[in-house]
């Protein structure tokens, strides 16, 4: 097992190329004692900026060509990388703007393997630094309602079982969706504080003069996830929350697009299924704040 390459999946854009080459890939070797196979793909099929496959800084890089007709979403790309490359018992996903810290992947693996629970572990999430997500996790069991897709270990059998990540979102909230599917399929989701990763993405960098895709898609996707897991009543609550949001114009536009293009496509598989970790406590809030 020690010599089987561990698949680490990363979806990138042309702006991430230098970071991948100069920072992320060189850092990967120190994250685990296992051999690493970094599976990458550019989400823009028309971009000329792609990584070269080969052995770089002790890592086997395998860049997979994106044959989509247009820019493909986070879930679609990860599902494609997963489907095309057998991954062993688990695999890692990492965002292209991250710097994984020394021993961080081994910390995720160790938690996955040694965790004592009646439930199988579907996802182990690493800790983001310096802006750690302030969401709750149980300090004894390390369970958490949802795991961020920025840096996580995912159980391969579970991923196959649920058919990978939901592609409808395009970007944002597919990680919450995947976590909720884990809880509703009797798996657990863990948070591993010892697995640290630099991820410079948070509120301080949002520009007030631009609408970020995160702001807009998070609103639209909030309606999708609310309907998918909480049915008609979830959708109603979500609509009410969007209408009370600070950016009313953006909310109204998100609502319009949701009704026009998405609502009828939302699956009803999880309607009526409940778990205490599958919860909505506010607009795009799926957790209690950590008490520390």
């Amino acid at each position, binding site marked *: 097992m020690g010599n089987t390459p561990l698949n680490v999946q990363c979806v990138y854009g042309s702006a991430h190329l230098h*970071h991948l080459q100069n920072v992320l890939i060189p850092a990967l070797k120190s994250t685990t004692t296992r051999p690493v196979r970094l599976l990458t793909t550019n989400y823009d099929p028309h971009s000329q900026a792609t990584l070269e496959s080969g052995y770089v800084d002790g890592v086997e890089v395998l860049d997979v060509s994106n044959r989509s007709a247009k820019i493909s979403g986070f879930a679609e790309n990860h599902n494609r990388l997963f489907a095309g490359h057998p991954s062993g018992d688990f695999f890692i996903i990492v965002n292209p703007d991250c710097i994984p810290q020394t021993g961080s992947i081994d910390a995720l693996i160790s938690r996955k393997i040694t965790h004592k629970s009646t439930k199988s572990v579907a996802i182990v999430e690493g800790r983001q630094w*310096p802006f750690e997500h302030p969401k709750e996790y149980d300090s004894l069991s390390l369970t958490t309602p949802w795991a961020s897709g920025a840096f996580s270990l995912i159980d391969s059998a579970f991923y196959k079982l649920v058919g990978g990540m939901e592609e409808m979102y395009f970007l944002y909230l597919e990680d919450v969706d995947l976590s909720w599917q884990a809880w509703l399929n009797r798996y657990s989701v863990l948070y591993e504080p010892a697995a640290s990763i630099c991820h410079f993405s948070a509120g301080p960098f949002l520009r007030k003069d631009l609408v970020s895709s995160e702001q807009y898609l998070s609103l639209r996707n909030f309606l999708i996830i609310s309907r998918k897991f909480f049915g008609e009543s979830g959708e109603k609550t979500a609509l009410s929350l969007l209408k009370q949001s600070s950016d009313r*114009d953006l909310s109204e*536009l998100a609502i319009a*697009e949701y009704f026009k293009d998405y609502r009828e496509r939302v699956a009803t598989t999880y309607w009526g299924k409940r778990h205490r970790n599958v919860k909505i406590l506010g607009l795009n809030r799926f957790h209690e704040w950590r008490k520390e």
Partner: protein
Amino acid sequence: MIHVVARSRSSADLFLQNHLSLEADITFELGTRSYFELLNRLIKETPEPWICLVHDDVYLGRDFAHKLSDLVRTLESRWSNWGLAGNAAVLPMQVGYAATEVVRYLSDPHGGPNLAGQILPAQSIDGNVMLLNLEAMRRKLVRLPPFEGFHLYDIVLSLETVKAGLGVLACPQLACWHGSKGNQQDFNRARSSHTFDEYLLSTVRNKIVQTINGEHEVQVDDAGLILRSGIDIQIDSLKTATAGRERKSIAIVTRTQFTRPSLLKRTLDTVKAFVSAARDAAHFASYLVTDATAAVCPDGMMKNTTLLRANFPHQGDSRYQLVKFAAESIEADYFWFIDDDDWLFPNEAERLSLVISSAPADSIIFLGCQHFAEQSLSGDFEDAGSFRSTPGKYYPAANFLASLSGSNHTPFCGQLFPRRTLLSIPTKVYDSVTYYEDYMTTLFALLSTNCFPIAVDKLYVGISVRASGNTITETDRTKWNSSMSELVSHMVNLPELSHMLSLPVHSLRSDSSVQSLRNQIAERDHHISSLLNSTSWKITRPIRVLIELMRGRLRLSELVRRLRKL
């Protein structure tokens, strides 16, 4: 080459009368019904490579034609991608001691100039005096939409220039008196036009566009346009203005004794992330400087970093000596000193790269940085991966002038110093100051007569604050006090520095005085609140209501409404 847009023959005559020295250079544009149409015609049909287009209510200096020719020569040689220039502009960065985004190289009924001497990149300019690079505009097919009237043409022309890939600049050579009759109401009326918003939606991807007259929020009523393409006026105005300029170099210097390798690795990893994100406008390179003799660099840490070892004759605290050593040893235009436990945020690296590329020589560039209180989850303070970091005090880039108040308001890592400034600090200063080396350098730079401050108020650096290992938290202040003594002694005995230290203290409100005022207000509020809650105040309330009724300050219907609510 000077085209005057005159409202009538008589205003043209008056203009000529006031500018007899420029008579040979003046052409009048009479009967104009649309500034947009006029601009399109001038771009298309005027044979000259460039023209200066002015309002008929400006007064140009006697040597304006001479300044204009000089300016064009300067632009051609130093801002070769220029397309448009004006004398008042909103910039994509903050400049000068006031750290303003609006620069005025003119005088008008609203005020006088607020800066001098520098050509700077602009998001948009005011139209009172505009220098148009017609040749470049024709080459890049600049064309304005067919709008009517005499408003907003300057913003639209600026945006079209940037959209076409040409630079927009603010230039002091275009200074004038502008007898402007325009006001904020006229501007507000013009910008409320639905057509203007439609134009912006098809041109920029910003939802807020800064103008000289304030921010304009673009109204979006189509979901498909929210995440639209188009220029990002903040970044693209910098890119176009700086295209073709000489590439400046920046040394990111980390001074280290290799005592905390894990933290140092974290620092260097983030420096590499920054360098990767900075793109090509400027050249960033990472350097480690040390005088540690037996230092061992951990495996892989040095990739893409240059190590420079100093060999100082005397042992002791070498932190300031290493600054001098770096400035003397590294050929770079700018120096950015990062402590070996700090980290860089790469998110706005490209913006900084472009700002540096556009910065005048000897600019000192201030950046936003923030304290982070760090705790080790494992208890191992040498293991950077175990740190949980809580954001603390943010140091705004524009607050640098407060450092003249007697205490330091800008961390060392929040400043980029020109090499020339570092090299001009006397050796005796480097030899005697240790702990306040950052403050000493900041003061020396700010008080240099050729200092030009630029502020980029984005978060660039995280500053690690831990329970131990930071000199800032040392309880024995002997070294701090001793260093302050050296600093003060040098500062007040360097005659080559400016007299900025004598700025009135009341114009530099320090945090402590603001806090003191807040405390006073809170005290008064508490006093008022205790009065309102007192029994005597409540008992006497009916009497006060009765008096208010008698004096007509309260209507009976209002009283009934209040009683019903109880």
